[in-house]
């Protein structure tokens, strides 16, 4: 079984981002970038499937600027076998990412694609579902457990009221939730080894995809700031303040 894992280079999750003063976007100059946390979980799951003898090859894919190579190298250091970089200097929206991934799936013919459930920059939560739609495959989103049942996947997903289990036809698209696993740290020897693993370079045009955006970003602004509050000295004072504010009692 071959597993494809798309990974995205995003602002590190610990960074407090700054909106540019001209309102054109978020300032990404000299900001620490990392692999999207949900994608780390996706890679970890794929590598575990390989270690369990279920997967034969894990291919990591990233779509974006040249520096996305670093994100692919991270995936290779975690245990992926090879990488594909689809280079684009434009911001590629989820629908176009899904179209490029469809082209890669048709070329690579994986049995399973594992994605993160959402990227922590655009917070769209769309790409996996869109890829499943374009391929006409089943989708197992927000996965917290993946098991195999013959030629099907038994997938436990996080839903609003708890958990749900689905049986999905293969090939399948899975999107990883935070609780699917705990990603490993890449060791130094594995980081060195990853430097020798191959990364193919492609462009969106290779897959016949025009990455022109459908959503025009008119502006990006700061969210309304909350007023600074007060520190109370005691529980009694807290309760009386809450009564005054009319939120309790």
């Amino acid at each position, binding site marked *: 079984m071959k597993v494809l894992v798309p990974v995205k280079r995003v*602002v590190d*999750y*610990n960074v407090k*981002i700054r909106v540019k003063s001209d309102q054109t976007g*978020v300032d990404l100059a000299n900001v620490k970038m990392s692999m999207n946390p949900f994608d780390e979980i996706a890679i970890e799951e794929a590598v575990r499937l390989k270690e369990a003898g279920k997967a034969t090859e894990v291919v990591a894919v990233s779509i974006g600027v040249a520096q996305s190579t670093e994100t692919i190298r991270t995936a290779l250091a975690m245990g992926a076998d090879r990488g594909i970089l689809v280079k684009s200097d434009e911001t590629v929206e*989820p*629908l176009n990412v899904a179209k490029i991934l469809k082209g890669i799936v048709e070329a690579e013919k994986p049995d399973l694609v594992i994605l993160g459930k*959402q990227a*922590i*920059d*655009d*917070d*769209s*939560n769309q790409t996996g*579902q*869109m890829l*499943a*739609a374009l391929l006409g495959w*089943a*989708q197992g989103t*927000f996965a917290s457990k993946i098991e195999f049942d013959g030629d099907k996947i*038994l997938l436990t997903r*996080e*839903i609003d*009221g*708890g958990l*749900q*289990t*689905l*049986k*999905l*036809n293969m090939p399948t698209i899975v999107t990883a*939730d*935070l*609780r699917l696993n705990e990603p490993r740290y890449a060791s130094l020897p594995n980081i060195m080894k990853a430097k020798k693993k191959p990364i193919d370079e492609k462009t969106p045009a290779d897959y016949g995809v025009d990455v022109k*955006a*459908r*959503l*025009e*970003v*008119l*502006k*990006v*602004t700061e*969210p309304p700031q*909350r007023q*600074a*509050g*007060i*520190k*109370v000295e005691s*529980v*009694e004072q*807290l*309760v009386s303040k*809450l009564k005054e*504010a009319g*939120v*309790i*009692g």
Partner: protein
Amino acid sequence: MTTLVIAEHNNENLNDATAKAVTAATKLGGDVHVLVAGQGVDGVAAAAAKLAGVSKVLVADDAQYAHRTAEPLAALVVSLAGSYDAIVTPATGVGKNFAPRAAALLDVQQISEIIEVDSADTFKRPIYAGNAIQTVKSTDAKKVITVRTTAFPAAAQTGSASIEKIAAAANPGLSEWVSENLTKSDRPELTSAKIIVSGGRGMQSGDNFHMLDKIADKLGAAVGASRAAVDAGFVPNDYQVGQTGKVVAPDLYIAVGISGAIQHLAGMKDSKVIVAINKDEEAPIFQVADYGLVADLFQAVPALEQELTKIGL
């Protein structure tokens, strides 16, 4: 302009999220229809027909929609989409699952979790865990939109829409529902509760969460949690408030033993009044709290319970 809102429900009751999505849909201008897809959903359809601003309710009653799995639901929505200019759904677990699938089938770039409608094609949505607000204009002929329900009030129950039964669409037959394990609770639902008491890593154990239960019972509140509390196994994951959990905006949010990481703030910083109880006075939660109490929660929480009893709660 006609908009189709996909109802969120559990086959028995219409979820409040639907009424909020209807409010967003009415802001697009034009007619609003609601699709109720499920099994045995006459009651849900009747409730949807009462929502102000809705002119027609479509009912697809079929076993394949019983659990609103993405593949059949997206196929149904796509089969209806020809008559609509916009497809709107609350950004709930179900909505986030099927809507992008439907959008891709319609070749539309979905607009996720809108918090404001500027016009029929221009919307505001949070990005970077709510640390920036993006205004986007859609150039797609048809819009597929998910709505952050905490940003819109619920539509009133003063309507009287017509109800029309429709046939099921062909089942793609790609997936099969096996089972569900739902967390049982007598408390209000987290995303619609007026008051929420949330615990974090500082609670130290699942047993200690019962301290919060007592406060929640007095206040008629829901209990939430930070990711740290969920990962530590103190409470089930559907308690989680934050970027990757539920987004809430109650009148009162009491954060107990929660440091206030960016990801948690993303899920609760639109609450009207925020209270933080934390022994670390440097904790980031105090930067957004209206009332902060620097104290050991193991003393403060029982004291709070007593104090609430004193004022007759």
